[in-house]
Each structure stands twice: as structure tokens, then as C-alpha cells.
């Protein structure tokens, strides 16, 4: 009997906590979406991080749209419709923006091809000479002559 009471109490506690958990979930979603939207009165700052009144108003709108059950794509599209793709901190790879995505890897590839072609055209380094080491030059320095005698035995 005592066990049943515990289970019922836990279930009731879970039901009571569910709305607040969902609210927290909604807030996390709103913040995540806010991080993808550019604040129109700041310099490249997401609305989720900006203290400006405009960004706060936009965050409030994001929260409303999240509460209405709108998806992330729908909310981003809502702001893009009003502020253009400019409002998106991670613009879609479409149109002119596509160039920004594709140009860096293309430039890297082109650089690699050019370097490879250049390296192929360079003359190969000559192999080291196989001839015997040159005889030690005669010297008039008595100290040097003494050292050579010691070394050569």
C-alpha cells in the first residue's frame, strides 16, 4: 500500500513539473533560434545575446512563435521575409550566398593544382657526387700539420 502511495505521489509530481519543463524547453529553443538571427541595431550580434530594446522585442516575437508551435525553419523564414536573408547569421547556401560557401574550397583546390603544376616544372635536384673525398690540401701552418699527423696516425 505504501509503495502505491509513493508511485501516485511521484506521478503527481511529474505531472505538476511537466508544464515548467516544457516552458524551459521552449525557452531553450527560442534562445537557440535567437542565436541564428542578426540583431538589426548591433554589429553582427545575435538577438539572443543583444541587450538592445529592438533585439529584446524580436526575442519576444521568437518566444511567441515558439509557443505557437512554429518550427525553427518557419521562424527563420518569418524574419527573413521582413529583414531579408541579411537577418540570418547562417544564410542558406542559395544564390549569391552559394558563392561564399563554394569559393573557399574551390580556391583551395585551385591553389593545390597550381602548386602541383609548378612543382612538376621545377628541375630535379642533382644527385650528390659519388667521387672520393678530396685529398687534404697541403698547408704551411705547422700547427695544422701536427694535428693532421695526430689524426691520420
Amino acid at each position: 500500500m505504501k509503495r502505491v502511495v509513493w508511485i501516485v505521489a511521484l506521478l503527481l509530481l511529474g505531472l505538476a513539473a511537466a508544464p515548467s519543463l516544457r516552458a524551459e524547453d521552449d525557452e531553450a529553443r527560442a534562445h537557440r533560434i535567437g542565436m541564428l538571427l542578426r540583431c538589426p541595431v548591433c554589429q553582427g550580434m545575435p538577438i539572443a545575446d543583444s541587450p538592445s530594446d529592438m533585439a529584446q522585442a524580436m526575442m519576444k516575437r521568437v518566444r511567441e512563435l515558439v509557443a505557437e508551435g512554429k518550427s525553427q525553419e518557419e521562424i527563420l523564414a518569418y524574419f527573413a521575409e521582413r529583414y531579408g536573408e541579411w537577418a540570418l547569421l547562417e544564410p542558406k547556401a542559395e544564390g549569391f550566398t552559394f558563392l561564399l560557401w563554394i569559393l573557399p574550397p574551390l580556391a583551395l583546390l585551385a591553389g593545390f593544382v597550381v602548386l602541383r603544376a609548378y612543382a612538376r616544372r621545377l628541375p630535379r635536384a642533382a644527385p650528390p657526387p659519388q667521387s672520393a673525398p678530396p685529398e687534404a690540401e697541403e698547408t704551411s701552418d705547422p700547427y695544422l700539420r701536427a694535428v693532421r699527423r695526430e689524426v691520420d696516425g
Partner: protein
Amino acid sequence: MNWRNAFLVALVVLPLMALLAFGFGRDPRRVPFALAGKPAPDFTLTTLDGKQVTLSQLRGKPVVINFWSTWCEPCKVEHELLQQAASFYGSAAHFLGVVYQDDEAAVRKYLESRSNRYPQLLDPGTRVAIDFGVAGVPESFLVDADGVVLERQAGVVTAPLVRAWLDGRVDGRTN
């Protein structure tokens, strides 16, 4: 450098220069006019007098919508000009002021000592400003008689600009 190398260099350098020219030719902070040629977002807002104004009910005449606030100095500069324009075009065009992120009492006090010939609307939550893609004040829009957003001015409006917007779009001026 032979012609082949020159061609390869040009192939790399010219598009890069074009890209840089395009990038430097634009102000990255300038918010684009995304509503150009699109139907104006409809709204119903309350005036300072407690009356309700619905944008879609103003179809048939061009509408100039001016977002402003009392803490914005350039807004004060254009206030008198917009009042004169509203007087000049009379019933041939609608003028609406939308108060942007301001205190109602401050707006009332500001307008007490100035002429006001058109409705001043309160925008709780900045909802309508966001719907119009407003990034700051002053910002003004021209909505044509069919409810399509034709023009935007981010900054102070001038007399020639208002004339360019409305002359030719109004049937006749009635003072």
C-alpha cells in the same frame, strides 16, 4: 610571364576583385528593403485618442507610414515636414505615425506643443515595426493604393522625397 600564366592569374584575380568590389560597395549594416513590392503587413493599432486604425481599410489611397519616437532627434527634424506634407496632400493620401519603443506619456507631452495632423499609433511589443522590418528610427514607408509596399526611407524624409513618392500617385490634392 607567358600568356598562359597571365590568363591563369587573371582568372583568379579578376573574380576576387569583382567580389571585393561588390563587398566593399555595400554597407553590411544596412538592412535590406525586404518588403519591396510585397503586400504590406496588415495591422490594427490604437491611436493616442483611443481609436483603432486598420491599414487594409485605408486602401484606395497611398499611405505614408512613419516610425518615430521622442528620443530620436532626426525624427523631430522630419516631424514638421511630415505635418506640412499631410496638410498639403489633404485627403488625397493617408499619413500614419507609428510610435517606436517609446513611452506613451512622453509622446503625448511631445505632441502637446506641436502640430499633429494625422493619427499617431501605439505599437505595443514593437510588433508592427518588426513586421515592416524596421531597424531603427526614423524609418518611413510608402504603401500604394492597392496595399503594396513601394518605398522605404531609412533616415529622415525630405520634401523632394515625399513629393516623388506621392505626386503622380494621388488623384488630386484637397487642402
